[in-house]
């Protein structure tokens, strides 16, 4: 009798709990999104409840550090693990994964989404054979951010499109070792997305290229020697101590504390260095295009963080709905209304730059000009068989360029000569491309 009562009570309780859970949940589906931890992505997470309210689709976020995320989503997509319905990927992964059939083509986006509004450079970089595989959430290039007060004190005026010679001269003039002010701060940290990205983009403006049209390494060329020697000499003269280990965050920290005269880095940093809550020099920052050498290509890169749908997802329609919501114009307007135009995700849509409200943001036009001046299809002076500005859109690149950038960093740190670093780099690239069957 007692057992019966217990069983009845527990069954009734279980029913009540299930019914309550179903009622409280009330969502038709739940999608899981893997993303990186940066300001724009975190801001988007804060607006997710509105998406859920509008569509009834719940969203679970998996936020990871960039390199951890890359490893995690690569493992999942290559094994068809199905852990994620949307992945945040970059311009490097999108065409490679698209060509492997790992991503769902974004060719059924609605008319309201207006896919033609996406900046052509972004659309091209996230496509393979003309098919878009990832929708850009925000895009970036690189540009010069400089201290207007220090530039003025040095008696110089920053041109809108400076040359490397001017940058070096200005860096020397702004350097004040007694007050710990470094004329210029640049990335030197090993890693294909850190110092490796910067030096590759810089090399483009010096007429260098990683490989020729037959995939033979070209790091033994005079153009590469000029690039590395120029970089190293300028940084030894006017850069911070230990620049060989500085990446984006280290330089951002130095710039925000007023310890850098110039910093050439991602356009997305403009919103950080002009934010008075974080930056001591917020009211004296100017912007210019990344420098060149008069050879055609400038030294700026092109990048986008974009949302893509893995081919193995069971919730393709819901994922597409989220992508349209997050990368559409409606989201931009929502953020602008709540947090101001300076905080909207930049660099993805032409309509943002046509908006007169956004034109008032101090770095808006320079960001657009920088993005438009990067050409991933013809990134170098001499022709190359790959696409991508600061990277080669082939699967092997991340591995071998990380190794090469380590060699370069060792040279900056004085552990070997520039010539030795380039010779080692030459061997690493040739070995990797030969093993992969390119040569």
């Amino acid at each position, binding site marked *: 009798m007692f057992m019966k009562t217990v069983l009845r009570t527990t069954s009734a309780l279980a029913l009540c709990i299930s019914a309550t859970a179903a009622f409280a949940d009330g969502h038709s589906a739940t999608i899981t999104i893997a993303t990186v931890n940066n300001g724009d992505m975190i801001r988007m997470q804060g607006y997710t409840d509105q998406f859920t309210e509008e569509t009834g689709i719940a969203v679970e976020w998996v936020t990871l550090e960039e390199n951890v995320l890359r490893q995690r989503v690569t493992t999942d997509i290559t094994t068809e*693990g199905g852990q994620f319905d949307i992945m945040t990927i970059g311009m490097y992964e999108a065409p490679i994964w698209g060509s492997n059939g790992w991503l769902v083509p974004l060719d059924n986006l609605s008319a309201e989404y207006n896919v033609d509004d996406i900046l052509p450079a972004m659309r091209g970089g996230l496509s393979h054979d003309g098919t878009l595989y990832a929708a850009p959430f925000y895009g970036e290039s690189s540009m010069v951010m400089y201290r207007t007060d220090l530039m003025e004190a040095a008696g110089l005026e920053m041109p809108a499109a400076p040359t490397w010679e001017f940058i070096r001269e200005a860096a020397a003039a702004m350097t004040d070792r007694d007050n710990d002010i470094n004329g210029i701060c640049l990335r030197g940290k090993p890693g294909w997305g850190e110092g490796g990205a910067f030096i590759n983009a810089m090399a483009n403006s010096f007429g260098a290229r990683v490989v020729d049209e037959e995939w033979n390494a070209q790091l033994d060329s005079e153009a590469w020697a000029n690039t590395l020697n120029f970089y190293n000499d300028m940084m030894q003269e006017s850069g911070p101590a230990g620049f060989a280990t500085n990446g984006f965050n280290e330089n951002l920290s130095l710039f925000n504390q007023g310890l850098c005269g110039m910093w050439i880095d991602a356009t997305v940093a403009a919103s950080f260095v002009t934010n008075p809550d974080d930056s001591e020099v917020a009211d004296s920052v100017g912007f210019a295009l990344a420098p060149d050498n008069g050879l055609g290509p400038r030294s700026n890169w092109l990048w986008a963080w974009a949302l893509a749908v893995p081919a193995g997802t069971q919730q393709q329609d819901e994922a597409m709905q989220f992508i349209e919501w997050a990368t559409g114009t409606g989201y931009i307007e929502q953020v602008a209304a709540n947090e101001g135009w300076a905080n909207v995700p930049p660099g993805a849509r032409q309509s943002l730059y046509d908006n007169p409200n956004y034109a008032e943001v101090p770095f808006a036009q320079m960001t657009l000009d920088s993005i438009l001046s990067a050409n991933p299809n013809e990134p170098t002076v001499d022709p190359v068989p790959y696409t991508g500005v600061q990277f080669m859109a082939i699967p092997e690149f991340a591995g071998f360029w990380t190794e090469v950038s380590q060699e370069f960093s060792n040279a900056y740190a004085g552990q070997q000569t520039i010539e030795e670093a380039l010779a080692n780099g030459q061997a690493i690239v040739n070995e990797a491309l030969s093993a992969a069957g390119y040569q």
Partner: protein
Amino acid sequence: MARAVTTPRKALNTAIAWTIGILIFFPILWTVLTSFKTEAEAIANPPVFLFFDWTLENYGVVQERSNYMRFLWNSVIIAGGSTILGIIIAVPAAWSMAFVPSKRTKDILLWMLSTKMLPAVGVLYPIYLLCIELGVLDNRYALVVILMLINLPIIVWMLYTYFREIPGEILEAARMDGASLKDELLYVLTPMAVPGIASTLLLNFILAWNEAFWTLNLTSVDAAPLTAFIASYSSPEGLFFAKLSAASTMAIAPILILGWFSQKQLVRGLTFGAVK
């Protein structure tokens, strides 16, 4: 006869011990302090030590952004489950190796330890594919088993070392008094090896709590523990050191508290043998 320790020598030893202690503890202290700073103060140069505007804002942001309790619960299940399961399997294994050794016991022990030398990434794909096949990706109990297997060699080795110091004659006497194998293990061996078992439990709980390769690669939402919670605050493009420090402090707090309360057992187990 023990050599007398002079007062200056004692003072010197104390000073050295304190210096080493402070050096080891300083990164943790700095993390805790940074968690109470603003992002601008977190990167200030020269760094500010104690005299800054203390704020709880970072903890508020972390609490708002992440479901801390879910991550904490997963950590407790994964670390606790794998440690207990490991002990259950390791006690009989260590007993047989310590008291009924064979010719190959030493080789087996070395072989077990050698599995720790394999880089985890080398078996990532096989394990990942197995988890897909068994439908246990993002599953706490799968991680309990995996972490137990990873830490089992250490557990067996530690217990083996403690058991070896228990005189076999005591067990023999128990057997002569009619104790069965179960009685011998439960009522004779285990009570004598309690300090050793306790320190093994604690050390392996800490190892499992801090394990960041498998817990990051095999989880996404449901089974993600505190290592994933910390990873979500690390960023190569943006200065979030204060928030990262707040998340780290929240992640290490439970294990620090556990370590604080059990330090006596931990030290005793690690520095003394079973019956000394």
